[in-house]
């Protein structure tokens, strides 16, 4: 690692020596009247003086590192602590399932976007940006950066790094052939300009109502001083090509991706609390150590993070990681290991492994949402699926509580994919309509549609053939195959034949992309901050199981997919409006209107509210909140500030 020493080391050491001498003299003078109160005061003095980790203080004393004041920005970000001010030191051991398990790395050490989600997920606050102001139209966003903030190699972080990110990455057609949606509200790419060294402005052609939320998972900056040597627009093209050849890569775009890879490039300057020292490609473990230039402090002004080092052993199977946790070799983790099935085992091992649980609340609507392909290429099935009464009948025909009791040991609540009660957009009708178990009414509805019961107990559709469809599930995340087999059993009671077909994951995605499926099952999306992923309320994305073809139509501007019905088009238009609305009250109104239409249309149905999850935390591992929201957008548990976790020594 390269460390810039800005002062003459001798001068620093002389100053330090003088301070030490003075401190010693003071101590000697006060010795005769040593009373407890004084010692306490001395200790707090010592704490105040050393507002950095001992390992960094030692480096400063040796002249390897500039003093703390020069490493911190003028106004460091103050991070509240969950329970108490922490102690420096220790190693946080967790684990990666295979080398490509990047999400856990981001969730623990690398969630430092421009804005960040609050721990309760109700909105975003400035993070790497110090402040943000928006003009009245919502087209111009001015970000103030932190003066004196530095990259992990000691180089200053300025507006040029934001500009570099924009010019080198976003504007460049080779690395970004398609520009990110969140940078082009209304279709055209926004512009980034430098106002001064610590101020940048993002301006868009249309109002951008979602920008500040979307920045909660984006880093709109890149280390210009390091990365420009790998970019032909910023450095000699031949020199860049030489590096490409030397690293045996296909082209410079591959080099660009490779050098920006936070899991493998130890030289990449970062703004995270820890920086990589051993890459994940080393096969056995990934290691990160504290960033001496981290720009956050606790309420008493001590530089964060508290923990010295993060170690991620790379395991190939979940069972090994579970055994490691039982053995007390995992300090804090929920990912992969904390499944409902493992809970009893972890409960028994609490004492031996010296750990306890924390509660994980899922910020998603439901673990099981069942979407009929409402844009099915087969005309007969499509006409059946499009009947709202048919969907209502299917939703009424299965006993949700019985399935919850069997599969989730009673932990849940019959519910449709809908905003959670904690969400500002909770909609009671959408959440609970048609969740009662009423096969008589289901039969009545199906009779009403004219689907007469055939001789073998299966109803006949409009074309006189049996009503029969496939349910596509994959073998991951939730016991979907078991659940859907139970559900299909109930459906056969009311004369609808459904067959569960388990697919390999990429095949599932191929089929979905080709609109070639009858019913697909997946998890629901955001239950709290709906605007980020409203897939269950209207045809929003390829994850909107009921209308992938409709979503494609909207996203492609009508050139792909299938034209959706009027109600869905109205919702899509409302969302377009939402995206360019800045006023919060107006945004709420539009979102509620979208949800009202969703409740009326009843596009998709589900099984239950999410069960309560859990995670493992060692008894000496502090400042982890008792309850943590699980949400991918806020890189949970990162919204609870892992830099303030500490290990009691």
């Amino acid at each position, binding site marked *: 690692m390269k460390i810039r020493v800005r002062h003459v080391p001798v001068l620093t050491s002389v100053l330090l020596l003088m301070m030490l001498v003075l401190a010693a003299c003071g101590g000697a003078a006060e010795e005769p009247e040593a009373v407890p109160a004084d010692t306490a005061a001395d200790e707090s003095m010592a704490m105040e003086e050393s507002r950095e980790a001992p390992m960094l203080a030692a480096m400063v004393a040796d002249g390897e590192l500039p003093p703390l004041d020069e490493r911190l920005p003028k106004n460091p970000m103050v991070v509240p602590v969950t329970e108490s001010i922490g102690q420096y030191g220790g190693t946080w051991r967790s684990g990666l399932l295979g080398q*490509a398990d990047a999400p856990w790395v981001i969730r623990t050490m690398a969630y430092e976007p421009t804005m960040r989600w609050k721990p309760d997920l109700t909105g975003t606050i400035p993070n790497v940006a110090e402040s943000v102001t928006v003009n009245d139209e919502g087209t111009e966003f001015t970000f103030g950066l932190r003066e004196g903030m530095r990259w992990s190699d000691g180089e200053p972080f300025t507006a040029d790094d934001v500009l570099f990110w924009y010019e080198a990455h976003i504007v460049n057609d080779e690395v970004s052939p398609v520009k990110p949606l969140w940078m082009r509200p209304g279709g055209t790419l926004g512009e980034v300009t430098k106002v001064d060294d610590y101020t940048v402005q993002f301006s868009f052609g249309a109002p951008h109502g979602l920008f500040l939320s979307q920045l909660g998972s984006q880093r709109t900056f890149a280390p210009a001083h390091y990365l420009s040597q790998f970019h032909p627009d910023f450095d000699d093209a031949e020199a860049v090509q030489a590096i490409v050849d030397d690293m045996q890569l*296909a082209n410079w775009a591959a080099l660009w991706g490779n050098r920006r890879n936070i899991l493998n490039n130890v030289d990449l300057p970062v703004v995270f609390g820890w920086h990589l020292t051993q890459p994940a490609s080393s096969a056995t473990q990934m290691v990160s150590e504290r960033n001496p230039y981290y720009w956050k402090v606790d309420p008493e002004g001590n530089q964060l993070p508290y923990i010295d080092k993060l170690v991620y*052993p790379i395991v190939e199977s979940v*069972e090994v990681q579970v*055994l490691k946790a039982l053995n007390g070799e995992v300090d804090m983790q929920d990912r992969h290991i904390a499944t409902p099935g493992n809970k009893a085992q972890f409960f028994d091992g609490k004492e031996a492994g010296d750990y306890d649980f924390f509660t994980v609340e899922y910020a998603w609507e439901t673990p099981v949402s069942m979407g009929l392909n409402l844009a099915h290429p087969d005309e007969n099935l499509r006409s059946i699926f499009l009947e709202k009464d048919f969907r209502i009948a299917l939703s009424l025909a299965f006993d949700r509580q019985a399935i919850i009791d069997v599969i989730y040991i009673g932990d849940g609540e019959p519910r449709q994919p809908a905003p959670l009660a904690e969400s500002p957009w909770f909609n009671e009708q959408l959440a609970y309509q048609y969740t009662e178990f009423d096969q008589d009414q289901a039969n009545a509805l199906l009779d009403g549609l004219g689907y007469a019961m055939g001789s073998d107990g299966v109803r006949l559709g409009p074309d006189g053939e049996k009503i029969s469809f496939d349910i596509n599930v994959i073998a991951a995340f939730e016991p979907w195959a078991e659940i859907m087999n139970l559900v299909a059993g109930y459906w056969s009671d009311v004369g609808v034949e459904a067959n569960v077909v388990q697919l390999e994951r990429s095949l599932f995605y191929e089929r979905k992309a080709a609109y070639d499926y009858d019913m697909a099952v997946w998890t629901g*999306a955001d239950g709290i901050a709906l605007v980020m992923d409203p897939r269950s309320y209207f045809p929003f994305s390829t994850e909107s199981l009921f209308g992938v073809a409709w979503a494609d139509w909207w996203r492609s501007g009508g050139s792909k997919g299938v034209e959706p019905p009027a109600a869905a088009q109205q919702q899509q238009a409302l969302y377009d409006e939402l995206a360019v609305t800045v006023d919060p009250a107006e945004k709420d109104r539009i979102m509620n209107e979208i949800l009202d239409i969703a409740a009326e249309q009843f596009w998709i149905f589900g099984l239950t509210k999410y069960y309560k999850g859990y995670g493992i935390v060692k008894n000496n591992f502090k400042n982890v909140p008792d309850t943590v929201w699980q949400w991918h957008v806020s890189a949970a548990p990162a919204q609870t500030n892992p830099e303030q976790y500490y290990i009691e020594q």
Partner: protein
Amino acid sequence: MLRYILRRLLLMIPTLFGISIIAFIIIQLPPGDYLTTVIAQLSAAGDLVEEDVIAGLKARYGLDRPMHVQYLKWMGNIMLRGDFGTSFEWDVPVGDLIWSRLGLTVALSLATLLFTWAVAFPVGIYAAVRQYSWGDYFFTGIGFVGLAIPNFLLALVLMYVAFKYFNQSVGGLFSPDFVEAPWTWARVQDMLGHLWVPMVILGTAGTAGLIRIMRANLLDELRKPYVKTARAKGLSELRLLLKYPVRVALNPFVSTIGLTLPILISGSAIVSVVLSLPTSGPLLLRALIAQDMYLAGSFILLLGVITVLGTLLSDLLLAWLDPRIRFDD
């Protein structure tokens, strides 16, 4: 003899080309490509992959080009520059990736091979010479159990035992303290402490098979007239046994070398996954699942080369060992 070796070596070239083409096609046969896998992985429980990310990746990996173009580019780079391409998933050159795992893989496989032979060889001879004795039944029983239990199950059981009763850190080949440590005597000891688990697991199945083969072959030989003749001539029993029938019965050991070599490299994927060993087996498995083309393709090509070489080697060894199958020059 030299001409024979030369001819065999020349024949290897078209064989390997065939292997590379078939490997490349098979890897691409499943629906989708590496990007589909990435999208499916990122979409896990809610993540949404934006179009811009996908388009960027597509251009970066050159996946939008037709299959034969991709193949020719890959093969061309191997032939001209010895460049096996870059792994999509790992973002590092394929060569580095395979090499970094080869050392421990070969160490583990060799240890397993020696363990297998050290056990199977004497036990097989004993079981044949003392046919239907108590010892024969005992080893036959153990052998069948070893053959019948799937390796991964044995791995899970041994792992649980190591955790429950020995309080040992499970998974991998080192304790947490030694993972990063430089090579010292203590680290070697630590590794040996972990190595025995996969060695025994991988060894049991192989041992059982070889014991049966050794026993059957030796029994055939023991009944042949030349054994009686030798015995009638007064040759000591041990010398007789080792000098003639055992030497003949060794043939199957040698002819399995050709098949053992690729296993040395590929490791035993499932057991390595279960035990989280940093060997090449899990790497290959993951590459195939993720359709990480260049990594999987290079791996299979490498295995092909080694199998072909191994077959040649075992043919030559057989000829050296058994004068009856020597070739006419």
